[in-house]
């Protein structure tokens, strides 16, 4: 039981922070299928900084880990500029731009990883080895039955994600800027008439999605895969998009969707372990989150409403 909660959370939270990024972007009216590429690129820049600086610090130092998170945020935000430019300035089709950004991210990071590895470290490896980050157990709280698992063996990034997610929630729903952002996705002309620069708000929203995806990417790199390589692109970005659509573009229900994915995944693994089934059966339980999503969507989709101006290129003259 404890394992289900521990592993479930460590998968659900990065997914959640990426989905919040997606919500920011889509609430401002920019369809964001690029999350997959953004998280990968963020993980790449973060991992790059971590391996480059690793020799500066002693072996057990945690500084490279925090540097990696910082640079993953920067890298993700920087790369997301490309999506913002394409969608806002160059008026490209947003769905297509997202797919192109993903393809380019996969190609670019694979190419750069190999180039940098052979140039700096002299070995043509296609990955940056990071290892798994250390884990924290909160004394006292972790002793509570069942719920204590939430405070056991947490990755540091989980704490960061919870804090950032709370800030993101506050900004989106409780501040003036958040109101503008949400209005941009529903009625950009009204926002424009109120004297607010729609393009600027959307630019910021997309960059926020890039920054948050960066956190998600580097978290996956430091937990599930323990390195950065092409394996980071396994579709978690698309999964978080499914989560945010499932959560009807609002933050709290999206958290529910992410937790569902996380617990269904870790629960499936535990069942396979408990029943001592051969490992290939884990593939079969892995479908649980996806089947659940489809079934739940059948019941809940009728009320799903995307932001009204989502995916539309903003044209000032159209008013």
């Amino acid at each position: 039981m404890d394992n289900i909660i521990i592993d479930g959370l460590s998968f659900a939270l990065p997914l959640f922070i990426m989905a919040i990024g997606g919500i920011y972007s889509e609430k401002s009216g920019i369809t964001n299928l690029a999350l997959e590429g953004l998280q990968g690129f963020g993980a790449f820049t973060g991992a790059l900084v971590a391996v480059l600086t690793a020799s500066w610090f002693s072996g057990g130092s945690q500084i490279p880990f925090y540097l990696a998170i910082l640079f993953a945020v920067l890298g993700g935000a920087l790369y997301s500029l490309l999506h913002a430019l394409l969608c806002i300035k160059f008026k490209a089709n947003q769905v297509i731009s997202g797919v192109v950004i993903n393809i380019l991210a996969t190609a670019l990071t694979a190419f750069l990883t190999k180039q940098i590895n052979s140039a700096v470290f002299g070995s043509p490896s296609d990955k940056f080895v990071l290892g798994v980050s250390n884990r924290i157990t909160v004394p006292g709280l972790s002793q509570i039955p069942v719920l204590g698992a939430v405070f056991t063996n947490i990755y540091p990034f989980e704490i960061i994600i919870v804090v950032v997610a709370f800030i993101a929630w506050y900004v989106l729903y409780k501040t003036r800027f958040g109101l503008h952002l949400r209005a941009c996705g529903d009625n950009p002309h009204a926002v424009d008439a109120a004297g607010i620069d729609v393009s600027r708000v959307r630019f910021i929203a997309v960059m926020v999605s890039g920054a948050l995806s960066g956190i998600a990417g580097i978290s996956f790199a430091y937990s599930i895969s323990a390195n950065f390589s092409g394996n980071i692109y396994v579709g978690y970005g698309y999964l978080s998009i499914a989560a945010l659509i499932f959560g009807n573009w609002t933050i709290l229900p999206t958290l529910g969707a992410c937790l569902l994915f996380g617990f269904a995944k870790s629960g499936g693994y535990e069942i396979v372990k408990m029943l001592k089934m051969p490992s290939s059966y884990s593939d079969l339980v892995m479908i649980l989150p996806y089947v659940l999503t489809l079934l739940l969507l059948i019941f809940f989709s009728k009320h799903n409403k995307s932001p009204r101006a989502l995916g539309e290129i903003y044209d000032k003259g159209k008013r």
Partner: protein
Amino acid sequence: MKKLIVKLLGNEKRQSMTIPIFAILVSLVAGAVVLGLLGKNPLSAYMNLLQGSGLWPKASYAGGKNMLTDFTSFLNALTPMLFASLAVAVALKGGLFNIGISGQMLCAGFVTTVVIGYSGLSSGIAKPLVLLLGIVTGALVGGLVGWLKFKFNINEVVSTIMINYIAQYVISFCINTFYVNPVSRQSNPVSKAARLTLMETQVGDLKMDIPLGIILAVIAAFIIRFLFNKTKLGYEIKTVGSSITAARYAGISVGRNMVLTMVISGALAGLAGVTYYLGYFGSIQPKVLPSTGFDAIAVSLLGNSNPIGIIFSSFLITIISKGSTYMSSAAGVEAEIASVITGLILLFSACSAYIAYKVKRAKSSLEEEKILQEKEKTNDRADSGKGAE
């Protein structure tokens, strides 16, 4: 400079051709700069791409191989890409975004592999059955997506992604449990009779892979073109794709067309799947979705979702991806540079609307200048006329 660009790209009728070509050229130049920075000769690297695809003679060949055999194996790789890109295009025309081509390919490939690939049927029966079953499986999976969208308002992007995962895991489980080849860790190879590509066939003194599917793929492109240009169904699909409300007003059944669009798109994805798994490869690697399904989205975009355009764009993208292996060994560049160039091409062509807009602006500003100049001339003449009076 301005004049040159307007002259080259200004013709609006030809822009659907000239702008993608412009995007390709710009990206190739950008790729050349990167290659140059790495200290490689870009021209010879690009030549290697063509050589690897059998479009330019190599310096030397292994026994039983020459340019023609390279070219047929290039066509072998092109076939699934062409089918998959057509599948994307059909869905796009209907206003749907089929991101689940990979999953549909996998389903079709797996079902046909199990049912026919392992059956021991003779070649004449097995091959048509492979195609038929591939079409049916793909169409069913695609149709399911369309039905979910129409009946339950489930966004097709989400449902196709979910189906991608479900297919990937279920099929990986089945392969690992029932059909795994202990040496290759892939599914057991399908029978030769069921293969859609005649592998290593002796023709004269050459050993070539003959992909039978490529003919079908080109025919399919023309059929899709006919469907959209000449038939009522195609017209209705396009109308639903441009505006659901307008289609409703016109009395077009939106739900029926949505499902039909996905059925056709899925069927094409199914063909892509069988030509990929029972043509190009011959076995299925568990737990891996074919990247073709995602690249196809981009190829389709580069070809303006136009079936004939897609023949060209898939040809180009396949040259780059197929030729990259040879380039990497011949020129000593990482093969990944090829996908970077592909990515750049797609990036620039995604901006095609913007380029068209800029060209239009440049054109009209040039025209204004001309008019101004002419006005000045006439004014001058008028002035000089006055002076003479």
